């Protein structure tokens, strides 16, 4: 081989190595070389294993109802956040009531999350999206534990029921989940979407006009007096009773909640949604949420909204809670999957009472 040919071959090899290096770096960035990297699609897959695939529906909180109203701020929130919507005045709200789980035809009479999701639009166009559950704590602290919980409690194909051994094994490794399980078992279940208290689940950073940052959790506390369901008779209730009930209430009068902000004190866990804050933390009532309309989801204004908790106005930022980026990513993947699928009305939307909407 003469010298010119070997020099050319060497240079060709160098070009090949450079191209290969770029490709390998890209594959690494993409996670193709890291099968253990947990991506949002892995979590959505686990939800689909747990609840099946229901084309056109959200992969979690599949059964829902669109709602509309306003948030009227009283101005007290400006002490904690410079977000425009805390200044006195009202902003429009589009939201959604839902029950937990990924099955759009599941009956309402279950031991399950009641949830409210909201999208508040400030005058300057910024949005604040949130998805709240009626439990003050969440079942897991990390995205990986959430995925593992879905897989551990997925129905066994042979029996159609979760394998108690796998569930027990999960709880051995995740004692933090026991507190949630106990709460679901022991806490009284609200009789209506209207009289539930809803919690932000995660803490967020609130930044005031002076630039000072505090960790805050918030809740929506109903004006409607609390009534509990009899947990022993849940199975006898009509399948859509929660949704029918709230539509009927909204035909009579608007429903109201107070947004209560709770500020973390030193030592309070701000990155772990499984741990409650002490009950004596002072709360600030920053304004009133009024819901006055409801409409079935497939034509309602909430259908296309992703209630991504990281869509925040200036003045509110994410905390270091690892669940937050996961919620954001999982909701985006769920949106991509369901939006590409043909729509079949949910059980709630087929119910004529709910179709009529309110008012």
């Amino acid at each position, binding site marked *: 081989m003469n010298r010119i040919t070997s020099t*050319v071959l060497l*240079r*060709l090899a*160098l*070009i090949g190595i*450079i*191209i290969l290096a*770029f*490709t390998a*770096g*890209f594959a690494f*960035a*993409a*996670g193709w070389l890291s099968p253990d*990297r*947990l*991506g*949002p699609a892995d*979590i959505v897959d686990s939800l689909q294993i747990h609840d099946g695939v229901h084309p056109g529906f959200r992969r979690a909180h599949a059964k829902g109802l669109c709602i509309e109203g306003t948030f009227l701020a009283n101005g007290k929130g400006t002490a904690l956040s410079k977000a425009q919507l805390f200044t006195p005045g009202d902003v429009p709200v589009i939201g959604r009531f839902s029950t937990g789980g990924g099955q759009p035809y599941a009956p309402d009479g279950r031991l399950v999350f009641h949830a409210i999701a909201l999208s508040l639009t400030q005058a*300057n*166009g*910024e*949005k604040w999206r949130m998805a709240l559950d009626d439990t003050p704590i969440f079942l897991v602290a990390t*995205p990986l534990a959430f995925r593992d919980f879905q897989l551990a409690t997925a129905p066994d194909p042979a029996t159609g029921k979760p394998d108690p051994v796998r569930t027990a094994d999960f709880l051995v490794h995740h004692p933090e989940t026991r507190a949630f399980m106990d709460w679901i078992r022991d806490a009284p279940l609200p009789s209506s979407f209207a009289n539930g208290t809803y919690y932000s689940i995660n803490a967020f950073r609130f930044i005031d006009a002076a630039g000072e940052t505090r960790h805050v959790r918030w809740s929506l506390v109903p004006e409607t007096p609390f009534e509990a369901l009899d947990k022993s008779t849940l199975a006898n209730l009509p399948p859509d009773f929660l949704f029918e009930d709230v539509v009927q209430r909204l035909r009579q009068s608007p429903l109201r909640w107070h947004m209560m902000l709770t500020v973390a004190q030193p030592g309070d866990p701000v990155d772990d949604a499984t741990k409650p804050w002490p009950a004596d933390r002072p709360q600030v009532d920053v304004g009133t949420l009024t819901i006055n309309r409801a409409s079935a989801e497939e034509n309602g204004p909430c*259908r*296309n*909204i*992703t209630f*991504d908790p*990281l*869509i925040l*106005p*200036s003045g509110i930022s*994410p905390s*270091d809670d*690892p669940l*937050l*980026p*996961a919620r*954001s*990513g*999982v909701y*985006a993947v769920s*949106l*991509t*999957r*369901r*939006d*590409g*699928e043909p729509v079949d009305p949910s059980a709630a939307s087929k119910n004529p009472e709910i179709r009529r909407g309110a008012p």
Partner: protein
Amino acid sequence: MKPVVAQFPLALRLVHWLMAALVIAMLFIGIGMVSTVSEMRTWLIDLHKPLGILILCLAALRACLRLTGRTPPLPDDLPIWQKAAAHASHLVLYALMFALPLVGWTMLSAGGYPIALFGTFHLPPLGPVDPMLFAILRRAHTLLALLLFVTILAHLGAALFHAWIRRDGVFRSMVPWR
């Protein structure tokens, strides 16, 4: 007799290398941010959006420079298929430099996401809120990004082939120095 090698105008050469760095960084950020639910995801996305708009602006500037400036011709002895491949790949690169930010912007609009760049500064939606459109554009954004990455690799390979194997002045026409 050695041919006199013309270079691209200096402004175009500088924008080329700046965009090369930005676009490659952007491809790595983009494919990385959607692969994880870790805290990296949030800050990579916050970087991805303003960087995409910056690339769109630079692409517009670059297209103007390219259309108004003088372009050095490819060597006469370059095989016709390589000339055709060069022109076609440059067209694809320009098209994708515009398409990716525009698809991303329209996609977020269709998904009902606010297009937050920094602080309270938002871009207006670039299209209607439309679920089916979001699903299509979201997948298109990934596919076009993969196509861009592959085209950039081909471009890089060809550039180095000109620089080290053919040594015909084509690579020199784009280097930032004289």
